[in-house]
């Protein structure tokens, strides 16, 4: 450690070295590590009124985590089905959104990386970027206009005489899934594009010359090669979808909540910060586990994610 510091000061001079160290230390300690520890600490305490904080009742407890699993003490059902169901639904739906996203983006990324060229590729890239300058909330709002009760789809269906009653796309969560998938398209396309773009076209030619049909070329050549990109894209999309708050708030049905909405409610409706912190820890741990699992299964290092 001292060797590192000495080397740092020797190589960069006092001013630069201090700037680097102070910046990195502030960032890691005050913005990343301590806040997470504070959140963990909060989650392990009772939700007490300010007057009793620091008093004899202010001790550590697993109460908030127990609540997530079992509900209130004396809950006749045994398990906290309401919250557990929301949690499971969020994870499953986020995974579904991820798979949908991959399926939609793979052909475009492949086309952009291997087939399109010159002006066409530039035009497509610009066309992809523009929608992402627009706020996530406004994009969700657009889906509400389309899928709403008196939205475009329902109005057109009624005009065509296909339906009598409005179809409640919002309650069916169609709008939510479409909106979430839409929200993260770009974050899937870019890693995929970066991965596929570096694939040598000669490999494709060779596979073709050896008589492989197109689907086998993808399955045996392109996809294995693009695996880091696929993993990176899927991880990003999954994390963002599972942690999304704005899109479910705008597009979620009245009876179906997203897990982040439970956290939001704990903070702003029930004013129970301790439980909210515990739920946030649960979300963070789940997401971390998913990332680690993805990296383990697809044998990708973290350095390759987030490029």
């Amino acid at each position: 450690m001292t060797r590192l510091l000495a080397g740092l000061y020797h190589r960069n001079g006092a001013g630069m070295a201090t700037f680097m160290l102070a910046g990195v230390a502030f960032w890691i300690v005050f913005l990343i590590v301590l806040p997470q520890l504070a959140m963990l600490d909060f989650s392990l305490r009772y939700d007490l009124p300010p007057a009793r904080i620091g008093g004899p009742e202010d001790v550590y407890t697993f109460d908030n985590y127990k609540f997530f699993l079992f509900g209130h003490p004396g809950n006749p059902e045994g398990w906290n089905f309401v919250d557990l169901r929301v949690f499971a639904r969020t994870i499953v739906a986020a995974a579904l959104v991820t798979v949908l996203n991959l399926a939609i983006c793979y052909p475009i990324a492949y086309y952009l990386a291997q087939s399109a060229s010159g002006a066409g590729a530039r035009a497509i890239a610009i066309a992809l970027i523009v929608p992402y300058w627009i706020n996530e909330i406004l994009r969700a709002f657009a889906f509400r206009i389309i899928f709403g009760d008196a939205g475009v789809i329902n109005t057109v269906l009624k005009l065509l005489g296909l339906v009598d009653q409005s179809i409640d796309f919002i309650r069916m969560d169609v709008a939510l899934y479409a909106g979430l998938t839409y929200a993260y398209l770009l974050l899937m396309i870019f890693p995929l594009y970066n991965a596929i773009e570096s694939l040598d076209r000669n490999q494709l030619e060779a596979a073709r010359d050896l008589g492989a049909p197109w689907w086998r070329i993808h399955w045996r050549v392109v996809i294995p090669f693009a695996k880091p990109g696929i993993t990176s894209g899927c991880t990003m999309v999954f994390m963002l979808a599972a942690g999304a708050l704005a899109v479910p708030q705008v597009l979620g049905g009245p009876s179906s909540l997203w897990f982040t909405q439970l956290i939001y409610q704990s903070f702003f409706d029930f004013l129970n910060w301790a439980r909210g912190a515990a739920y946030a820890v649960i979300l963070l741990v789940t997401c971390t586990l998913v990332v680690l699992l993805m990296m383990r299964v697809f044998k990708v290092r973290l350095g390759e994610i987030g490029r």
Partner: protein
Amino acid sequence: MSQHSAATVDAAPAAPPVRRAWTPETTIRVFVGAYIVLFFAYLFGPLIIMSITAFNSSSFPRAVPWECLTFEWFAKAAADDRLRMGLRNAAVIGAGVVSLSVTLGLAGALFLTQVWPRARATYYTVVISPILMPGVVLGISTLLFWDRIAKTLGASTDTLFYNGIFLTILGQSCFISSYCMLVFIARLQRFDMGLVDAALDLGATNAQAFRKILLPFLKPAVGSAAVLAFLASFENYNTTVFTISHYNTFTTEVAQKARLGIDPSISSLAVVIIVLSLIGVLAHEGWSRYAARREKTGARGPGAFFRGNPAAIMSALIVVAGLGTMWAAQHHSAAACKAEVLQEKLEIQRRLREEAAQRRLERQQQQGPAESVPARSGIGSPGRGTFGDVFSPESLRGAPTPTAPAEPRTPGVFSPDTLRPGTGQ
């Protein structure tokens, strides 16, 4: 495939060069073309529809049925005090986040080149982790941490620790610094450290080497990191909503509006943002093409800027169209058209009411005056077998049929009250 360099996004792949007979490959190309068209329909359809609703006078954001061309929703959004306040807060927060994140990101990226190799992976994992954490978690942890610090210090609630803007800057900087760091790392990878060594050998101090060699090299990256940081800060919701406390930003305000009420003025905000980003992206594209050509041919000036540069031309056209629309908005009034639409609606309502009264009269003649409660008024939709079951055997028998509540979708017209003669609205 590379022969047909695509001029436009949609047309190019759909029209493959017809040189050979129809082969399986042609089929694939047609599918790919169709897929790309569908994909971009999914990408742009929602935005286009939303933009249309911003110009429709219907007080509910809808593209169909079209009522009148109006610009009132823009005026309404522009006059919204909370939105203005949100914009101002977002600008303050954005400035704070840009200065903090660019600094931290630069420090982080430089440190990565220096940290000894064994610790490198761990260090990288730590500083990149905020990107992979859910935004709500970052917001909550920032809120709780500074709350804890404030309580420990015994600070009162009007200090910085409870200030939503301060907390938001810190919470957002946590992960935006990682973005900035990635930008700097990408740039640093192309930097030749030998240049700094050469400067030092020639007698420069470390500070001089940094200021004169490294910083100029990193300057474009500072610019793009700052732009990225500002955009990320401006549109952040998940973190901000937890740290902002009683303040608001543009984004939290829009979210509030989009959740609670549904109002075309939100669409008008989207139109403004879409137009601005289109101009921004196209102008940037046009500028980089112009700069690249200027390097090669040395052609300068506005003529050279627009010649053979579709992105530049398009951005200029959009600016002109936007200004034209703004001018037209000053001189356009939707009042006449809206009065017409209202008249039409009243007309339809009146006709329906008349028809209903007519039927009631007929029925009274058939059944005698005793029957005054309409049977199942809620069933049937307008214009399509309405009141069909009035003539069903049951009604004729005079059985006490339950009165279903009027359908909420067609209020007024079919409610029992309306059927009573003489109730005008």
